[in-house]
């Protein structure tokens, strides 16, 4: 009697992670039609995090980035390995605090912008005058 080896999904008991284990024998004659197409559950780590070693998750406190769809209490995925560029949403160190801003690099200087008209821009001569803690790549917005 033949045996088909197929994967089985178990819950690893850890957030965002599931795992394939094998082999699990399946009696010949009753192969699951889905079996050949099953590669495992969606792993958010795999899709949302490029470089796990350099990535941290932070939580937003305040409403200055509302215009970018980033609200109070949202979580952000921050990659420290990325080079901040014009338009990046960055975590900058301002007055000893981790602060989220939009980075604008122009011919005349560098601006840290809020995405909320209630908050003023912060201008510096160049990026090297800033301490950029990391670049936000995703916002886990609470809907």
């Amino acid at each position, binding site marked *: 009697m033949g045996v088909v080896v197929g994967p089985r999904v178990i819950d690893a008991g850890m957030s965002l992670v*599931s795992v394939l284990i094998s082999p699990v024998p399946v009696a010949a004659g009753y192969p699951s039609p889905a079996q050949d197409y099953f590669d495992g559950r969606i792993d958010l780590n795999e899709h949302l995090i490029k470089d796990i070693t350099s990535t941290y998750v932070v939580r937003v406190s*305040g409403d200055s980035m509302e215009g970018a769809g*980033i609200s109070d209490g949202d979580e*952000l995925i921050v990659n420290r*390995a990325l080079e901040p560029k014009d338009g990046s949403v960055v975590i900058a160190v301002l007055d000893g605090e*981790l602060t*989220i801003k939009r980075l604008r690099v122009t011919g005349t200087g560098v601006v840290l912008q809020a995405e909320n008209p209630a*908050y003023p821009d912060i201008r510096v001569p160049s990026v090297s005058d800033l301490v950029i803690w990391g670049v936000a790549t995703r916002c886990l917005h609470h809907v």
Partner: protein
Amino acid sequence: MSKPATMRRMPQIAHVDVNCFYASAERAFDPSLEGRPVVVLSNNDGCAVTRSAEAKALGIALGEPWFKLAPRAKEWGLVALSSNYELYGDISARVMELLGRYSAWLEVNSIDEAFLGVKGTPDQLLALGRTMKTAVRRNVGVPVCVGIAPTKTLAKLANKWAKHNPAFDGVCHWDSVAADDRESLMRRLSVIEIWGVATRLTKRLNALGIQSILDLSRADPVMIRDRFSVVMMRTVLELQGTQCIPMEEERIGRDQLIFSRSFATPITTAAAMRQVLSVYGQQASARLAKHGLQAKLLTAFAGTSHFNSKDTSYPSVCVPLPMPTADPVLLTRAAHALLPHIHGGIRYARAGIMVTDLRPTGNQAPLALFENPHEERRVGTLLEDVTRRYGRGSIGLGHAGIRGGPDWTMKRDMLSPRYTTHWDELPLVKAA
């Protein structure tokens, strides 16, 4: 240097360690600590185990009890923090993962330092050292210094030099420094500054007229072996540039115990990794028991070689243990938490476990009956029954189950958030 060309291509050793590790890990998530004197306290907020440069400048000694410092803390602007082992364990794992990308041969020497086998011309080695320093600072967020030399002992010395002499900017390649300068450094430094030379040995060396590192490097290795030990002879040979401190698979530090190794043949299956982790779990258990210690936190890690594999993977997990333990079953089970992150077919070149947050066995285990829950199966069943009926926290092993916070044995009043391992303690970023 007038060494033959073949000598220059010999693999060298890079020693990388994090400056004031615990304090730097705290600063990575709380930039307001930058530039301020910071001390991190030992278990039960006993004494200063890490001091930032500013704290050292205040004259605070390593191991100084907190009750002596506390009255002056305000006046000094001194920030004291309880040991946040979860944070340090995760940051350590990240540093090691990152360093593993630069060498297939990585030996984790302690929670905050590693040796790497590196090859190249002096210029390439210096450039590699700078690259690693920049990468760890940028990607993980903590500052490191790098020493690169023909041997481990010299690499440690080079690192120390890099830390203390700003001219190196944190990276010292021993062979690139003028021979006169190296000699004058070794003449200036007492033998006690060398890795592995204890105070009592220093006195005996001094009695033989060996005061400085230079004196020791010029001593006769055979005489040193006869009068001291093979270990001391190795140190002499290492100072002379001959590699002879072998790869170690196990180290015990002040507050951690590490088992790790690189594999001769890469591990490619979770089943094989399970075996390796089981061996480490049991070794850790035996060593903890031998030293009369129990651990509260276990980190397990693995990594591919950056060179031999196009599928790179550096999984690590940080597992808080349910209670301080040296139990082989609990430790092994905790180490197995890495397995879901091991992907079949990927060639893992190394793996290891580290146990931290160690405390003496005597401090808990109030009832001998509960020392090994695995020998008392009925206890487990009873506990489950009671828990099911009366709720979690109504009963537990020893103190472990008693309500009132997870860290029942420890006073950690000044604990920072566990920023990277607990979802409800994430770092806050200000949107204002």
